[in-house]
């Protein structure tokens, strides 16, 4: 196999991935335009994609780097508020300001993640979990009282009248970009450093990897994705309320990532979409009369899945387009041979 063949294979996978997404896009678009998919289900679809972006962020943090975060929704919320602030104060529905609000949301979340991550990522497993959970609650209190700092943020009553400029197209595009970026990151040397930390932090350290640095890197990247998801969310739903970002939302992200199978991007993507549709689907299937059973059924499904598939649905595996190309050594070139005597 010649040099560059592997590169081609990688490009090949990217091409296949893009083709699939294009096909999905065309089908979805057709369904939406022809109103086979009602605007209500269109909204659900957008929510599913936004959830996917946020969940991929946690997939990086927890699934690939092993950092147990129970505060992911806080960063989703920070992104949402930062973007809402930009759009509400300056944008007023302008597309250019909206496009600016997206990176502002992501970067604000990333910045906060960096500042909080540097000290708390020293903590291990459950202690880190509870510290991030605590951070999430602090952020929620901050949102509830945000009007004291900036009246436009609305405090406990939330913000209304946000311009709904995000549509299916841009949300879909952001999702595809997120999937590609995450995949590329995971399949790079930086991603491998993170995965090594997940598997054995001490060994990674002793094998020459600056563990603090890569834990923070993964955390910042994952939180930036949560921020991006939040920024999209506020431009899709006209009403922003602090309770959308409380710790129960963090648990949503967590259970998606775990049910999908830790360390599986494909699992995270599919579970995100399935989970959002399941929740709405239940509403639909149960009808008004039995709607109150929705929560009970939802909880039961959760317990049953985890009992049946403790490793998650995908159990760390990837579907082939998301998997790294199988590296094969260049033939012809002889490696050194130990060729031991016996």
């Amino acid at each position, binding site marked *: 196999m010649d*040099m*560059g063949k*592997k*590169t081609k294979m*990688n490009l090949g996978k*990217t091409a296949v991935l893009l083709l699939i997404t294009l096909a999905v896009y065309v089908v979805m678009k057709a369904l939406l335009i022809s109103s086979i998919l009602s605007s209500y289900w269109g909204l659900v679809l957008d929510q599913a994609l936004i959830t996917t972006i946020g969940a991929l962020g946690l997939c990086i943090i927890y699934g690939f780097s092993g950092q147990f975060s129970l505060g992911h929704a806080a960063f989703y919320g920070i992104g949402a508020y930062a973007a809402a602030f930009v759009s509400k104060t300056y944008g007023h529905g302008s597309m250019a300001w909206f496009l600016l609000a997206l990176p502002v949301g992501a970067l604000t979340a990333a910045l906060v993640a960096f500042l909080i991550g540097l000290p708390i990522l020293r903590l291990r497993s459950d202690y880190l979990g509870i510290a991030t959970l605590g951070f999430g609650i602090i952020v929620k209190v901050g949102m509830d009282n945000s009007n004291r700092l900036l009246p436009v943020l609305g405090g406990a009553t939330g913000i209304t009248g946000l311009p709904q400029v995000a549509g299916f197209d841009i949300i879909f595009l952001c999702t595809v970009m997120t999937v590609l*970026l995450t995949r*590329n*990151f995971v*399949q*790079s*040397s*930086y*991603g*491998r*450093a993170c*995965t*090594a930390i*997940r*598997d*054995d932090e*001490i*060994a*990674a*350290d*002793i*094998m*020459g*990897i*600056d*563990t603090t640095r890569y834990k923070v*890197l993964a955390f910042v990247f994952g939180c930036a994705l949560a921020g991006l998801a939040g920024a999209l969310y506020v431009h899709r739903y006209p009403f922003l309320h602090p309770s959308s970002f409380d710790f129960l939302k963090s648990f949503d992200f967590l259970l998606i990532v775990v049910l999908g199978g830790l*360390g599986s991007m494909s699992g995270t993507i599919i579970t995100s979409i399935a989970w959002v549709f399941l929740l709405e689907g239940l509403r639909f299937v149960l009808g008004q009369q039995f709607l109150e059973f929705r929560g009970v059924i939802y909880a039961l499904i959760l317990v049953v899945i985890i009992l049946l598939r403790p490793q998650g649905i995908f159990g*760390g595996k990837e579907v082939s387009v998301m998997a790294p190309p*199988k*590296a094969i*050594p*260049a033939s012809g*070139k002889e*490696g*050194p*041979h*130990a060729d*031991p*005597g*016996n």
Partner: protein
Amino acid sequence: MPILEIKDLSKNFGGLKAVSSFDLTLEENEIVGLIGPNGAGKTTVFNLITGIFPVSSGSIKFMGQDILGMKPFKITQLGIARTFQNIRLFKQCTVLENVRTIFHPRVKYGLMDSFLHTPRYSAEEERITEKSFELLKTMNLDDRAHLTAANLPYGDQRRLEIARALAGEPKLLLLDEPAAGMNPSEVGTLVEMIRFIRDHFNITILLIEHQMGVVMNVCERLVVLDFGEIIAAGLPEEIRNNQKVLEAYLGKGVVSA
């Protein structure tokens, strides 16, 4: 200049002396064995060299540089690599990934190249993969490159740890019981491999081992540790006939037996 110079090294855990007044000088290209009964403090010496535990007193110099108080990853990046007595592979990763990961500190592309998979990324990945396969081949593991590390038999896991350590391009390699859990034919191969590694990669090797077959065959010099103190040092033949060593190591009955 010696590659490693340890002087008067001591380590206490609570009141317990794990290592005391330990001296060791390694010259370039040596293979030296560190032996002694279970619990003698051998692995502690490795942990002190690689910076896992802070040293209680003494000095450690690597290629003339004082490495006391450095973080483990920094010490490794200077050129000391090791394997672990209780195998510590990146279990959920493939064999190949385990080796490729260790190239990270010297990788020649940035984060942006990672995100965008630029040509620079591709070329460098190509190089890392080639080198990893060379190392796997050296350790007879190239046909298992895509298996998950956790599913390898012990012998293969031990050899993978060595391959992984070599990926750090070390000047000094510390092997902690490389033969444990291997069958006799694997042990024979291992002895050859250790010699090959020394010659081919031009490195110094310090190894802890219980199987005397390996130690006597591969080491040029031995240091015997018991209760954290050196009780003997010298050529394998000398050690083999040293009564103090035989008693400490094999039990008192051995001489009469």
